[in-house]
């Protein structure tokens, strides 16, 4: 299992380019989003929204009107679109922390393997098979 999928056009500008802006020795590793201070700033409102979904009442309110809930939390228009479209990669690019984004996935009944299938472009089944076979390796 290699990371040849890296050569595919993967959107990580958001995270990666912000990471290198201040350039204080932050890692810049292919295919590896770093949730740093810049990401955390951009993602703060959206991550708060995700964390709020731990509460059943909030999940209900969210599902009743997702856009309104996004506006209530003050997320950006781009982030709102990513949330509504369940564009998991965009959520990460726009400052989502995987542990927070996962709260939304859980609500949707999605597993971390499903997300792995999305992030890698492999799809859930192949991703799961790769994990069962011992995980993926670099290059």
């Amino acid at each position, binding site marked *: 299992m290699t990371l040849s999928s890296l050569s*595919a056009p*993967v959107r990580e500008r958001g995270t990666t380019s912000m990471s290198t802006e201040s350039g204080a020795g932050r890692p810049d590793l292919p295919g590896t989003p770093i949730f740093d201070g810049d990401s955390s700033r951009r993602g703060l409102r959206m991550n*708060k929204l995700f964390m709020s979904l*731990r509460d059943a009442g909030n999940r209900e309110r969210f599902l009743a009107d997702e856009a309104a809930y996004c506006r209530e939390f003050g997320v950006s228009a781009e982030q709102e679109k990513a949330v509504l479209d369940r564009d998991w990669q965009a959520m990460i690019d726009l400052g989502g922390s995987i542990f927070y984004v996962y709260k939304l996935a859980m609500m949707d009944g999605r597993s971390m393997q499903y997300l792995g299938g999305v992030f890698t472009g492999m799809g859930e089944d192949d991703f799961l098979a790769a994990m069962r076979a011992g995980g*993926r390796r670099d290059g």
Partner: protein
Amino acid sequence: MAEVIWGLATSHVPSIGAAMDRGKTDDPNWKALFDGYAPARAWLAEHQPDVAIVVYNDHANGIDLDFVPTFGLGTAERYEVADEGFGRRPVPDVIGHPELSLHLVESLIDEEFDLTVFQELAVDHGFTVPLSVWTPDPGDAWPCPVIPLLVNVIQYPQPTAARCYALGQALGRAIRSYPEDITVGVLGTGGMSHQLAGARAGFINPDFDHMWMETIETDPGQLAAMSREELIRKAGSEGIELIMWLVMRGAMDDRVTKVHSDYFVPASNTAAGIALFDNRNGQPA
């Protein structure tokens, strides 16, 4: 004088707890993992400490991103088990040990560790899964009071590996200077190699994990010299959690005796490792 009698390193993947909570430990996908825990659990059942300290990180359950402490230490009498979204795990709340906690706070702040002191904290799977790895059937209560030591591993910049190891060494000194003769177990949690997001999601590095498992016993200072970048490159973006094993290891003596270790891929997306060390000098394992 208090004494660290053992150190337990273990992954804290939520699905390990879920497999136990749902009675799936004999499921073909899980059986080998839990079989690998058995010898450590048997030894631990014979070596109950008076207090345990769990070095862990929170995952969007007990604390939010509005403030991110590098190191936090709980001083409460009780820590509630967090509801992570679908009901709390069916395990007991955690009884703390405020007297030891407050002693640790004073010692560590005197040693120039800039702790955040928590009087209220809900603990998530990062904390309860290691307790379940140790004690699969706690009944109404965990075997002893437990103190949480929080480490930021999810927001860059995490504390360096060297800082974590130094914290562990100071923690060991702080425990040994506690005036009461009590025994202490220390749990270092998280890891091993894994990455959850990005095109490299699913990354596992067994060579690195085996090196780490061996070296954490024999030469932890070598691991403490690794940079964040090296850790993330070799262990994956979430594999950096392994720095919490260094806090545990630092609290122990230079020479420890390995009781048991095991390695299993995958627990969910993660390489699950367990390593149990006896810290009673000259004792047979």
